[in-house]
Protein backbone atom coordinates (compact mmCIF):
# COMPACT_ATOMS: atom_id res chain seq x y z
CA UNK A 1 0.00 0.00 0.00
CA UNK A 2 0.99 3.55 -0.50
CA UNK A 3 3.54 2.68 -3.13
CA UNK A 4 1.54 4.59 -5.70
CA UNK A 5 3.07 8.05 -5.50
CA UNK A 6 1.93 10.47 -8.16
CA UNK A 7 4.73 12.87 -9.04
CA UNK A 8 5.29 15.68 -11.51
CA UNK A 9 8.14 17.92 -12.52
CA UNK A 10 7.36 21.58 -12.17
CA UNK A 11 9.22 24.79 -12.98
CA UNK A 12 8.25 28.17 -11.70
CA UNK A 13 9.60 31.51 -10.56
CA UNK A 14 9.71 32.18 -6.85
CA UNK A 15 10.77 35.60 -5.65
CA UNK A 16 12.43 36.19 -8.99
CA UNK A 17 14.38 32.93 -8.99
CA UNK A 18 13.68 30.11 -11.42
CA UNK A 19 13.17 26.85 -9.56
CA UNK A 20 12.31 23.38 -10.73
CA UNK A 21 11.52 20.33 -8.69
CA UNK A 22 9.86 17.00 -8.90
CA UNK A 23 6.96 17.02 -6.47
CA UNK A 24 4.21 14.77 -5.31
CA UNK A 25 1.02 16.05 -6.94
CA UNK A 26 -0.84 16.25 -3.66
CA UNK A 27 1.74 18.59 -2.13
CA UNK A 28 0.10 21.94 -1.55
CA UNK A 29 1.85 25.11 -2.59
CA UNK A 30 2.52 26.27 0.96
CA UNK A 31 4.31 23.04 1.78
CA UNK A 32 6.22 23.24 -1.49
CA UNK A 33 7.51 26.66 -0.49
CA UNK A 34 8.21 25.65 3.09
CA UNK A 35 9.51 22.12 2.64
CA UNK A 36 11.10 22.06 -0.78
CA UNK A 37 12.39 25.61 -1.02
CA UNK A 38 12.84 26.20 2.73
CA UNK A 39 11.01 29.50 2.39
CA UNK A 40 9.52 29.24 5.84
CA UNK A 41 8.13 32.76 5.92
CA UNK A 42 4.87 31.43 4.51
CA UNK A 43 2.96 30.15 7.52
CA UNK A 44 0.25 27.55 7.91
CA UNK A 45 -2.33 28.64 10.43
CA UNK A 46 -5.37 26.61 9.48
CA UNK A 47 -4.84 24.74 6.22
CA UNK A 48 -8.45 25.26 5.28
CA UNK A 49 -8.30 28.67 3.71
CA UNK A 50 -9.70 30.83 6.48
CA UNK A 51 -6.83 32.30 8.48
CA UNK A 52 -4.90 33.81 5.57
CA UNK A 53 -1.44 33.28 7.09
CA UNK A 54 -0.31 31.32 4.02
CA UNK A 55 -1.30 34.02 1.51
CA UNK A 56 1.21 34.44 -1.32
CA UNK A 57 1.12 36.25 -4.63
CA UNK A 58 0.67 34.07 -7.71
CA UNK A 59 1.07 36.07 -10.89
CA UNK A 60 0.56 39.11 -8.71
CA UNK A 61 -2.72 37.99 -7.18
CA UNK A 62 -3.09 37.19 -3.48
CA UNK A 63 -4.12 33.57 -3.00
CA UNK A 64 -4.20 30.98 -0.24
CA UNK A 65 -1.23 28.73 -0.79
CA UNK A 66 -2.77 25.99 1.36
CA UNK A 67 -5.62 25.70 -1.15
CA UNK A 68 -3.45 25.40 -4.23
CA UNK A 69 -1.38 22.45 -5.26
CA UNK A 70 2.25 22.95 -6.09
CA UNK A 71 1.63 21.42 -9.54
CA UNK A 72 -0.88 24.17 -10.21
CA UNK A 73 1.88 26.74 -9.81
CA UNK A 74 3.87 25.18 -12.64
CA UNK A 75 4.88 27.98 -14.99
CA UNK A 76 3.67 30.69 -12.65
CA UNK A 77 5.36 33.48 -10.81
CA UNK A 78 5.13 33.28 -7.03
CA UNK A 79 6.11 35.93 -4.52
CA UNK A 80 6.30 35.14 -0.82
CA UNK A 81 6.93 37.35 2.16
CA UNK A 82 10.65 36.75 1.67
CA UNK A 83 10.35 38.43 -1.71
CA UNK A 84 8.79 41.67 -0.54
CA UNK A 85 11.91 43.50 0.63
CA UNK A 86 14.20 45.18 -1.88
CA UNK A 87 17.03 43.10 -3.35
CA UNK A 88 19.43 44.91 -1.01
CA UNK A 89 17.37 43.70 1.94
CA UNK A 90 15.82 47.03 2.83
CA UNK A 91 12.25 46.73 3.97
CA UNK A 92 9.41 47.58 1.63
CA UNK A 93 7.33 50.63 2.47
CA UNK A 94 4.64 48.36 3.87
CA UNK A 95 7.08 46.32 5.94
CA UNK A 96 8.61 49.52 7.27
CA UNK A 97 5.16 50.80 8.22
CA UNK A 98 4.41 47.55 10.05
CA UNK A 99 7.61 48.02 12.04
CA UNK A 100 6.97 51.65 12.88
CA UNK A 101 3.28 51.23 13.71
CA UNK A 102 3.79 48.09 15.79
CA UNK A 103 1.70 46.12 13.31
CA UNK A 104 2.90 42.75 14.53
CA UNK A 105 3.28 40.93 17.80
CA UNK A 106 3.91 37.20 17.53
CA UNK A 107 4.45 37.62 13.80
CA UNK A 108 2.69 34.46 12.72
CA UNK A 109 -0.06 36.14 10.72
CA UNK A 110 2.31 38.84 9.48
CA UNK A 111 3.47 37.21 6.22
CA UNK A 112 -0.13 36.78 5.09
CA UNK A 113 -1.01 40.31 6.12
CA UNK A 114 1.94 41.66 4.15
CA UNK A 115 1.24 39.73 0.97
CA UNK A 116 -2.48 40.49 1.16
CA UNK A 117 -1.93 44.19 1.69
CA UNK A 118 0.79 44.36 -0.96
CA UNK A 119 -1.71 43.13 -3.54
CA UNK A 120 -4.49 45.27 -2.13
CA UNK A 121 -2.50 48.52 -2.12
CA UNK A 122 -1.51 48.01 -5.74
CA UNK A 123 -5.19 48.10 -6.68
CA UNK A 124 -6.25 50.62 -4.07
CA UNK A 125 -3.56 53.26 -3.69
CA UNK A 126 -5.80 55.53 -1.65
CA UNK A 127 -7.98 53.26 0.46
CA UNK A 128 -10.35 54.20 3.23
CA UNK A 129 -9.94 52.61 6.62
CA UNK A 130 -13.04 50.51 6.00
CA UNK A 131 -11.58 49.23 2.74
CA UNK A 132 -8.39 48.23 4.51
CA UNK A 133 -10.37 46.40 7.18
CA UNK A 134 -12.33 44.64 4.49
CA UNK A 135 -9.16 43.72 2.63
CA UNK A 136 -7.73 41.95 5.68
CA UNK A 137 -11.04 40.45 6.78
CA UNK A 138 -9.74 37.14 5.46
CA UNK A 139 -6.61 37.30 7.60
CA UNK A 140 -6.94 36.36 11.24
CA UNK A 141 -4.72 37.78 13.95
CA UNK A 142 -5.05 36.82 17.61
CA UNK A 143 -2.51 39.31 18.99
CA UNK A 144 -2.98 42.81 17.71
CA UNK A 145 -6.69 43.52 17.54
CA UNK A 146 -5.88 44.66 13.99
CA UNK A 147 -5.73 48.37 14.86
CA UNK A 148 -2.03 48.79 14.21
CA UNK A 149 -2.15 46.64 11.10
CA UNK A 150 -4.79 48.95 9.67
CA UNK A 151 -2.76 51.97 10.74
CA UNK A 152 0.34 50.53 9.07
CA UNK A 153 -1.52 49.87 5.83
CA UNK A 154 -2.91 53.39 5.72
CA UNK A 155 0.49 54.83 6.51
CA UNK A 156 2.13 52.74 3.80
CA UNK A 157 -0.51 53.81 1.29
CA UNK A 158 0.18 57.43 2.09
CA UNK A 159 3.91 57.03 1.74
CA UNK A 160 3.56 55.10 -1.49
CA UNK A 161 1.38 57.86 -2.91
CA UNK A 162 3.95 60.44 -1.91
CA UNK A 163 6.68 58.45 -3.63
CA UNK A 164 4.83 58.44 -6.93
Amino acid sequence: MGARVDKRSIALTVNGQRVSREVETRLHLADFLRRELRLTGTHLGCEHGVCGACTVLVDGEAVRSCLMLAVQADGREVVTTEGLAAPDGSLSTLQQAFWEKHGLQCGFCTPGMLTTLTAFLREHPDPTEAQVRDAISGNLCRCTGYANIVAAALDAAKRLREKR
Partner: protein
Amino acid sequence: MKPPPFTYHDPRSLADALRLAGTLENAKLLAGGQSLAPMLNFRYVLPDHLIDLNRIDELSGIRIEGRRITAGAMTRQRALEKHEALAALCPIVREALAEVGHFQTRNRGTLGGSLAHLDPAAELPGVMALYDAHVEVRNSSKTRYIHIGEWSRGYMTPNLEPDEIVTSVAWDAWEGSHGHAFVELARRRGDFAIVGVGALLSLDERKLIRKAAVALVGVAYGPVRLRAAEQALVGKPLDDKALDIAAAEARKIEAKSDLYASGDYRRRVAGVLVSRALKTAHGRARG
Protein backbone atom coordinates in the same frame (compact mmCIF):
# COMPACT_ATOMS: atom_id res chain seq x y z
CA MET B 1 -4.49 18.25 7.41
CA LYS B 2 -2.56 17.28 4.33
CA PRO B 3 -4.30 16.27 1.11
CA PRO B 4 -4.78 12.52 0.67
CA PRO B 5 -3.08 10.65 -2.14
CA PHE B 6 -4.69 10.81 -5.56
CA THR B 7 -3.70 10.66 -9.18
CA TYR B 8 -3.60 14.09 -10.68
CA HIS B 9 -4.78 14.91 -14.17
CA ASP B 10 -4.62 18.31 -15.79
CA PRO B 11 -6.25 18.02 -19.20
CA ARG B 12 -5.71 20.88 -21.62
CA SER B 13 -9.01 20.51 -23.42
CA LEU B 14 -12.59 19.99 -22.44
CA ALA B 15 -12.73 16.89 -24.59
CA ASP B 16 -9.88 15.36 -22.63
CA ALA B 17 -11.48 16.35 -19.37
CA LEU B 18 -14.78 14.77 -20.39
CA ARG B 19 -13.02 11.61 -21.43
CA LEU B 20 -11.33 11.43 -18.03
CA ALA B 21 -14.54 12.21 -16.17
CA GLY B 22 -16.28 9.51 -18.15
CA THR B 23 -13.74 6.81 -17.53
CA LEU B 24 -12.12 7.34 -14.13
CA GLU B 25 -13.71 5.86 -11.03
CA ASN B 26 -14.03 7.99 -7.92
CA ALA B 27 -12.73 11.11 -9.62
CA LYS B 28 -13.25 14.64 -8.41
CA LEU B 29 -13.18 17.76 -10.54
CA LEU B 30 -10.99 20.58 -9.28
CA ALA B 31 -12.10 24.09 -10.20
CA GLY B 32 -10.94 27.02 -8.07
CA GLY B 33 -10.36 24.72 -5.13
CA GLN B 34 -11.58 27.13 -2.48
CA SER B 35 -14.07 24.59 -1.16
CA LEU B 36 -12.69 21.32 -2.45
CA ALA B 37 -9.14 21.91 -1.23
CA PRO B 38 -10.24 22.35 2.40
CA MET B 39 -12.31 19.17 2.10
CA LEU B 40 -9.24 17.39 0.77
CA ASN B 41 -7.06 18.81 3.53
CA PHE B 42 -9.61 17.71 6.12
CA ARG B 43 -9.75 14.38 4.31
CA TYR B 44 -13.51 14.47 4.12
CA VAL B 45 -13.25 13.91 0.39
CA LEU B 46 -10.92 11.13 -0.70
CA PRO B 47 -10.88 10.83 -4.48
CA ASP B 48 -8.71 8.37 -6.36
CA HIS B 49 -8.36 10.88 -9.18
CA LEU B 50 -8.30 14.62 -9.27
CA ILE B 51 -9.13 16.21 -12.62
CA ASP B 52 -7.86 19.77 -12.57
CA LEU B 53 -9.85 22.02 -14.92
CA ASN B 54 -7.60 25.04 -14.44
CA ARG B 55 -5.59 24.52 -17.62
CA ILE B 56 -8.59 24.35 -19.91
CA ASP B 57 -8.72 27.80 -21.45
CA GLU B 58 -11.98 27.19 -23.28
CA LEU B 59 -13.83 26.97 -19.98
CA SER B 60 -13.22 30.55 -18.93
CA GLY B 61 -14.34 33.87 -20.25
CA ILE B 62 -17.36 36.10 -20.26
CA ARG B 63 -19.25 36.56 -23.52
CA ILE B 64 -21.91 39.23 -23.88
CA GLU B 65 -24.22 39.28 -26.89
CA GLY B 66 -26.93 41.84 -26.45
CA ARG B 67 -28.50 40.99 -23.14
CA ARG B 68 -27.30 37.42 -23.30
CA ILE B 69 -24.45 36.66 -20.95
CA THR B 70 -22.52 33.44 -21.13
CA ALA B 71 -19.81 32.83 -18.59
CA GLY B 72 -17.46 29.89 -18.74
CA ALA B 73 -17.54 27.63 -15.72
CA MET B 74 -13.90 28.34 -14.90
CA THR B 75 -14.35 32.09 -14.95
CA ARG B 76 -12.84 33.37 -11.71
CA GLN B 77 -15.14 35.15 -9.31
CA ARG B 78 -12.77 38.11 -9.39
CA ALA B 79 -13.05 38.27 -13.17
CA LEU B 80 -16.83 38.46 -12.85
CA GLU B 81 -16.46 41.07 -10.16
CA LYS B 82 -14.13 43.27 -12.20
CA HIS B 83 -15.93 42.96 -15.54
CA GLU B 84 -17.25 46.43 -16.33
CA ALA B 85 -19.66 45.50 -19.12
CA LEU B 86 -21.15 42.79 -16.93
CA ALA B 87 -21.44 45.23 -14.03
CA ALA B 88 -23.31 47.64 -16.29
CA LEU B 89 -25.81 44.99 -17.33
CA CYS B 90 -26.04 43.03 -14.07
CA PRO B 91 -24.76 45.19 -11.23
CA ILE B 92 -26.03 42.73 -8.67
CA VAL B 93 -23.33 40.27 -9.68
CA ARG B 94 -20.65 42.59 -8.37
CA GLU B 95 -22.63 43.42 -5.25
CA ALA B 96 -23.18 39.76 -4.42
CA LEU B 97 -19.59 38.82 -5.14
CA ALA B 98 -18.39 41.28 -2.54
CA GLU B 99 -20.01 38.92 -0.03
CA VAL B 100 -18.34 35.78 -1.43
CA GLY B 101 -15.48 34.85 0.86
CA HIS B 102 -12.56 37.25 0.63
CA PHE B 103 -10.72 38.73 -2.31
CA GLN B 104 -7.96 36.16 -1.96
CA THR B 105 -10.46 33.32 -2.35
CA ARG B 106 -12.28 35.09 -5.18
CA ASN B 107 -8.97 35.25 -7.05
CA ARG B 108 -9.19 31.48 -7.36
CA GLY B 109 -12.85 30.62 -6.87
CA THR B 110 -14.90 30.09 -10.00
CA LEU B 111 -18.51 30.44 -11.09
CA GLY B 112 -18.84 26.79 -12.06
CA GLY B 113 -17.13 25.63 -8.90
CA SER B 114 -19.57 27.57 -6.78
CA LEU B 115 -22.52 26.02 -8.62
CA ALA B 116 -21.11 22.51 -8.49
CA HIS B 117 -20.15 22.69 -4.82
CA LEU B 118 -23.56 24.18 -4.05
CA ASP B 119 -23.01 25.27 -0.49
CA PRO B 120 -26.45 26.18 0.86
CA ALA B 121 -25.20 29.67 1.70
CA ALA B 122 -23.43 30.32 -1.60
CA GLU B 123 -24.35 33.67 -3.13
CA LEU B 124 -23.74 32.96 -6.81
CA PRO B 125 -26.39 30.27 -7.20
CA GLY B 126 -28.81 32.77 -5.68
CA VAL B 127 -27.88 35.41 -8.24
CA MET B 128 -28.21 32.87 -11.02
CA ALA B 129 -31.64 31.98 -9.68
CA LEU B 130 -32.69 35.60 -9.96
CA TYR B 131 -31.92 35.52 -13.66
CA ASP B 132 -33.41 32.09 -14.32
CA ALA B 133 -30.00 31.09 -15.58
CA HIS B 134 -29.31 27.84 -17.37
CA VAL B 135 -26.35 25.73 -16.47
CA GLU B 136 -24.69 23.94 -19.36
CA VAL B 137 -23.32 20.55 -18.44
CA ARG B 138 -21.68 18.06 -20.72
CA ASN B 139 -20.46 14.54 -20.77
CA SER B 140 -18.58 13.02 -23.63
CA SER B 141 -21.74 12.30 -25.59
CA LYS B 142 -24.31 14.94 -24.78
CA THR B 143 -25.00 18.42 -23.49
CA ARG B 144 -27.71 19.33 -21.01
CA TYR B 145 -29.05 22.78 -20.26
CA ILE B 146 -30.45 22.81 -16.77
CA HIS B 147 -32.62 25.55 -15.44
CA ILE B 148 -31.26 26.84 -12.15
CA GLY B 149 -34.50 25.83 -10.49
CA GLU B 150 -33.69 22.22 -11.32
CA TRP B 151 -30.12 22.48 -10.21
CA SER B 152 -30.23 21.52 -6.52
CA ARG B 153 -30.91 17.88 -5.80
CA GLY B 154 -30.31 18.08 -2.06
CA TYR B 155 -27.64 19.08 0.38
CA MET B 156 -24.57 20.10 -1.62
CA THR B 157 -25.81 17.88 -4.40
CA PRO B 158 -26.20 19.49 -7.80
CA ASN B 159 -27.98 18.00 -10.78
CA LEU B 160 -24.74 16.63 -12.13
CA GLU B 161 -23.68 13.08 -12.92
CA PRO B 162 -20.18 11.80 -12.17
CA ASP B 163 -19.26 11.84 -15.86
CA GLU B 164 -20.49 15.39 -16.40
CA ILE B 165 -18.73 18.74 -16.20
CA VAL B 166 -20.30 22.16 -15.78
CA THR B 167 -19.11 24.05 -18.81
CA SER B 168 -20.88 27.39 -18.71
CA VAL B 169 -23.76 29.37 -17.32
CA ALA B 170 -25.98 31.60 -19.42
CA TRP B 171 -28.54 34.17 -18.45
CA ASP B 172 -30.29 37.22 -19.79
CA ALA B 173 -29.78 40.60 -18.21
CA TRP B 174 -32.96 42.50 -17.54
CA GLU B 175 -34.08 44.86 -20.18
CA GLY B 176 -33.95 48.56 -19.54
CA SER B 177 -33.26 50.24 -16.26
CA HIS B 178 -33.99 48.34 -13.09
CA GLY B 179 -32.98 48.25 -9.51
CA HIS B 180 -31.01 45.60 -7.69
CA ALA B 181 -29.84 44.72 -4.21
CA PHE B 182 -28.00 41.89 -2.57
CA VAL B 183 -28.06 41.92 1.21
CA GLU B 184 -27.11 39.29 3.70
CA LEU B 185 -26.75 38.58 7.35
CA ALA B 186 -23.51 36.90 8.27
CA ARG B 187 -21.77 36.78 11.61
CA ARG B 188 -18.64 38.40 10.24
CA ARG B 189 -17.45 39.80 6.96
CA GLY B 190 -17.08 37.01 4.42
CA ASP B 191 -18.79 34.36 6.54
CA PHE B 192 -21.36 31.89 5.31
CA ALA B 193 -24.62 33.80 5.07
CA ILE B 194 -27.23 32.87 7.64
CA VAL B 195 -29.63 34.39 5.14
CA GLY B 196 -28.83 36.20 1.91
CA VAL B 197 -31.33 37.91 -0.33
CA GLY B 198 -31.01 39.13 -3.89
CA ALA B 199 -33.68 41.29 -5.49
CA LEU B 200 -34.25 42.74 -8.94
CA LEU B 201 -37.02 45.20 -9.62
CA SER B 202 -38.15 47.11 -12.68
CA LEU B 203 -40.79 49.82 -12.68
CA ASP B 204 -43.21 50.99 -15.28
CA GLU B 205 -43.73 54.62 -16.23
CA ARG B 206 -46.16 55.07 -13.33
CA LYS B 207 -43.47 53.78 -10.97
CA LEU B 208 -45.45 50.65 -10.36
CA ILE B 209 -43.62 47.35 -10.25
CA ARG B 210 -43.41 45.84 -13.71
CA LYS B 211 -41.31 42.86 -12.80
CA ALA B 212 -39.68 41.53 -9.65
CA ALA B 213 -37.33 38.71 -8.78
CA VAL B 214 -36.38 37.74 -5.26
CA ALA B 215 -34.07 34.88 -4.33
CA LEU B 216 -32.84 33.65 -0.99
CA VAL B 217 -29.72 31.72 -0.06
CA GLY B 218 -28.68 30.13 3.20
CA VAL B 219 -32.18 29.05 4.13
CA ALA B 220 -32.54 25.83 2.16
CA TYR B 221 -30.16 23.47 0.42
CA GLY B 222 -30.35 25.43 -2.78
CA PRO B 223 -31.38 28.95 -3.73
CA VAL B 224 -35.07 29.70 -3.28
CA ARG B 225 -37.05 32.00 -5.57
CA LEU B 226 -39.92 33.80 -3.92
CA ARG B 227 -42.29 33.45 -6.90
CA ALA B 228 -45.50 34.13 -5.01
CA ALA B 229 -44.16 37.38 -3.65
CA GLU B 230 -42.81 38.39 -7.03
CA GLN B 231 -46.21 37.91 -8.65
CA ALA B 232 -47.98 39.68 -5.84
CA LEU B 233 -45.80 42.72 -6.32
CA VAL B 234 -46.44 43.19 -10.01
CA GLY B 235 -48.57 46.21 -10.78
CA LYS B 236 -48.23 47.61 -7.29
CA PRO B 237 -46.24 50.44 -5.80
CA LEU B 238 -43.59 49.31 -3.32
CA ASP B 239 -45.37 50.59 -0.27
CA ASP B 240 -45.44 49.14 3.23
CA LYS B 241 -48.27 46.86 2.29
CA ALA B 242 -46.34 45.41 -0.62
CA LEU B 243 -43.27 44.98 1.57
CA ASP B 244 -45.35 43.21 4.19
CA ILE B 245 -46.68 40.81 1.60
CA ALA B 246 -43.20 40.02 0.37
CA ALA B 247 -41.82 39.63 3.87
CA ALA B 248 -44.72 37.40 4.82
CA GLU B 249 -43.97 35.17 1.83
CA ALA B 250 -40.35 35.01 2.91
CA ARG B 251 -41.36 33.95 6.39
CA LYS B 252 -43.29 31.03 4.94
CA ILE B 253 -40.30 29.27 3.48
CA GLU B 254 -39.13 26.01 4.90
CA ALA B 255 -35.84 27.04 6.43
CA LYS B 256 -33.20 24.69 7.71
CA SER B 257 -31.83 24.63 11.24
CA ASP B 258 -28.21 24.10 12.13
CA LEU B 259 -25.90 24.81 15.00
CA TYR B 260 -25.76 28.47 14.09
CA ALA B 261 -29.34 29.47 13.46
CA SER B 262 -32.72 27.88 13.85
CA GLY B 263 -35.23 27.65 11.05
CA ASP B 264 -37.43 30.13 12.91
CA TYR B 265 -34.69 32.68 13.10
CA ARG B 266 -33.82 32.20 9.45
CA ARG B 267 -37.44 32.74 8.46
CA ARG B 268 -37.67 35.86 10.53
CA VAL B 269 -34.45 37.30 9.12
CA ALA B 270 -35.52 36.30 5.62
CA GLY B 271 -38.56 38.52 6.05
CA VAL B 272 -36.42 41.41 7.23
CA LEU B 273 -33.85 41.07 4.48
CA VAL B 274 -36.38 40.61 1.70
CA SER B 275 -37.97 43.84 2.75
CA ARG B 276 -34.61 45.62 2.91
CA ALA B 277 -33.45 44.25 -0.42
CA LEU B 278 -36.67 45.32 -2.12
CA LYS B 279 -36.45 48.80 -0.64
CA THR B 280 -32.89 49.23 -1.84
CA ALA B 281 -33.67 47.80 -5.26
CA HIS B 282 -36.69 50.04 -5.49
CA GLY B 283 -34.70 53.11 -4.58
CA ARG B 284 -32.17 52.27 -7.27
CA ALA B 285 -34.90 51.54 -9.81
CA ARG B 286 -36.32 54.99 -9.22
CA GLY B 287 -32.84 56.31 -9.91
